[in-house]
């Protein structure tokens, strides 16, 4: 049987349920009443002990949201979401704000252990080279359960804490920056997030400081019928540098769950932010049952001159991904980069890409996108590159490659290019290829199995992007890509 035919047959049989993070944790939860109303928002705000201005901000967002329509331009289809069937807040009971790890429910700690995420600083310190340390913020459903290395970071002047804590402790900073990159009115899902966001990370790096370690947040959706609405705000002050990693997983469930996050990055003069994501939410089963709806708004503002924002994403999970990490290149000579690997298998639908909005002079951007579609999935790259009329000397280079495995999947590239300045130079390259039977045969003739051959070819395809990830993440991502494609190959 020809290799490709076999691949297709395998895909038919595929159980996307190779998903190894699909376990559920038994902890007693406290939830808001089901559905969305002003009362629910007040409930969330009260749970977080928020000041009045924050509550007002949420209520304004909610009012606005009620007048908005869900967007339908993406190349994804799904049953209508009933926003009143969702719980907007779920937190492990009796433990809203643990003071130390000893106060955290051991079940939750075990969850993170199973996920391979170290929360105990002692253990990290014992076994790992100092320069390899990663500070972790662990978010379980609607609350942050632990943040490591807080003290050490504080010494360097870096603030890294749950955003709910930052709202109480650093209200001025939060007030100054929250919603300035993704306005409350930005889009349906961002506005919903503004009304109901529960937790997420807050990072502030003071002027001239190079953050001494990688910062990382692990998001875990556990409770059923619960949406996760995290909000992350990262500010790199003048001349500072920070690298931030984000990972996420969820149990296997038959019903779909909504994840609508907002991430805002602000880089001031000469500052640099690297934001890396390994997105591995539960993708649903082979028939497309269950899985996370991942509707996320991520945007960075290169507000200062010579600032740099780099988005790197490895997207393997979620039933639906709707995500366009973008850069507003406001400061002169600022640079935006977007490196993406999006893998889809089974019935997954991905509509992802970026927006590079050139406003300042001599701004540059670079987009490298690698889409891999297998099974009956649909994988779309959608990207906008625009130059404002004042963006003299703007430059963009875009490269979008798609790789198809089998013949029931789809890969699509939808670039939007708008230039209002005659000096702007935009380049766009795109390719679509299939793993050929001849390539497979060649590898097999050398002794590689079907799966080893596919993994090798796919790794070659995504190499340029993997190189952008911090090393530990790159190894993890490489494994994840292989696992995601298991069973998709003949």
């Amino acid at each position, binding site marked *: *049987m*020809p*290799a490709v035919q076999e691949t297709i047959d395998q895909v038919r049989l595929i159980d996307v349920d190779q998903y190894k993070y699909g376990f559920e944790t038994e902890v007693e939860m406290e939830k808001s009443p089901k559905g969305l109303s002003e009362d629910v928002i007040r409930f969330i705000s009260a749970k977080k002990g928020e000041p009045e201005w924050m509550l007002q901000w949420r209520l304004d967002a909610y009012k606005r949201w009620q007048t908005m329509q869900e967007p339908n331009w993406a190349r994804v289809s799904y049953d209508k979401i009933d926003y009143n069937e969702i719980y907007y807040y779920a937190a492990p009971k009796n433990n809203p704000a643990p003071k130390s790890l000893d106060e955290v429910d051991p079940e939750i700690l075990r969850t993170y252990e199973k996920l391979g995420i170290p929360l105990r600083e002692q253990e990290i310190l014992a076994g790992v080279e100092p320069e390899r340390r990663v500070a972790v913020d662990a978010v379980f459903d609607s609350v942050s359960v632990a943040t490591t290395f807080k003290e050490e970071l504080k010494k360097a002047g870096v603030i890294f804490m749950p955003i709910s804590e930052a709202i109480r402790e650093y209200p001025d900073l939060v007030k100054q920056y929250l919603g300035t990159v993704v306005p409350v009115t930005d889009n349906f899902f961002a506005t919903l997030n503004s009304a109901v966001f529960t937790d997420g990370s807050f990072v502030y790096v003071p002027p001239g400081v190079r953050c001494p370690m990688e910062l990382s947040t692990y998001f875990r959706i556990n409770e059923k019928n619960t949406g996760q609405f995290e909000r992350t705000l990262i500010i790199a002050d003048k001349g500072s540098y920070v690298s931030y990693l984000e990972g996420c997983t969820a149990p296997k469930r038959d019903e779909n769950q909504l994840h609508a996050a907002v991430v805002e990055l602000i880089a001031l003069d000469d500052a640099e932010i690297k934001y890396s994501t390994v997105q591995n939410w539960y993708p649903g089963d082979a028939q497309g049952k269950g899985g996370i709806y991942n509707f996320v708004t991520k945007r960075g503002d290169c507000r200062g001159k010579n600032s740099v924002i780099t988005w790197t994403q490895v997207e393997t999970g979620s039933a639906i991904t709707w995500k366009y990490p973008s850069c507003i290149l406001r400061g002169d000579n600022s640079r935006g980069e977007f490196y993406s690997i999006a893998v889809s298998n089974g019935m997954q639908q991905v509509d992802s890409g970026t927006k590079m909005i050139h406003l300042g002079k001599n701004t540059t951007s670079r987009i490298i996108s690698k889409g891999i579609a297998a099974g009956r999935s649909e994988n779309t790259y959608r990207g906008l590159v625009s130059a404002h009329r004042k963006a003299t000397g703007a430059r963009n280079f875009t490269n979008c490659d798609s790789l198809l495995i089998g013949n029931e999947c789809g890969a699509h590239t939808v670039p939007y290019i708008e230039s209002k300045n005659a000096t702007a130079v935009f380049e766009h390259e795109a390719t679509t290829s299939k793993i*050929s*039977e*001849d*390539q497979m*045969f*060649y*590898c*097999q*003739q*050398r*002794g*590689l*199995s*079907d799966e*080893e051959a596919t993994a*090798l*070819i796919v*790794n*070659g*395809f*995504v*190499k*340029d992007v993997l190189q952008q990830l911090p090393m530990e993440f790159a190894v993890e991502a490489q494994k994840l890509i292989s696992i995601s494609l298991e069973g998709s190959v003949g």
Partner: protein
Amino acid sequence: MLEIKNLVVQIEDKRILNGLNLTVNNGEVAAIMGPNGSGKSTLSYVIAGKEDYEVLDGEILLDGENILEMGPDERAAAGVFLAFQYPLEIPGVASMTFLKAAMNAQLKARGESELSTPDFIKRVNAAAAQLEIPKDMLKRALNVGFSGGEKKRMEILQMALLRSSFCILDETDSGLDIDALRIVSEGVNALRSPDRSFLVITHYQRLLNHIVPDTVHVMHSGRIVRSGGKELALELEANGYADYRESEAA
């Protein structure tokens, strides 16, 4: 030892091999010559296990074991190596990475332990030096942007490293200039040993001046129609394949 008995093969209802018989003993270098379309490349693909071909009858025994039921990777682990006429490109995968993956896959299939990185590098460097392969080439993506000569040298390098017992060279001389032909031939000759046999497929006598065969077989219409010693190749070079075409017409 490789024995092919009464092999009948078709692709998309077209008969390519018609009851082919062939024996290659251990340590033997057998050449197969024949006009275009006689089924030479099909024979090499069928031995290596390419899937598009339908085997209607016959068997292929490698050291007494029928390999027709094995997948191509299992045949590779059992000792079959095919140097491709047109080696495939694997973008983004450094040649070194590919070599290591292939060597370890075969070791694993045979139940042996994987190579340590220093051992692997030592072996590659030694074999690469003999084939005049520069280190830089090993870092480049496999066969991507390689010249014809570089691709063929890379095939022989893999052949040397994988230590296969039955090696097929499918028109390895095509696209090679004189120097590359010499390097490749020397590489192959260095691998000749009593426990390794070769099947050298070629159109031209030229290659056989460098890799001197023990036996020469003439293939026509999917069958071996004549066998002899190395002098048979010279006879073919002088007379061409016309005799065999006429015999077919008659």
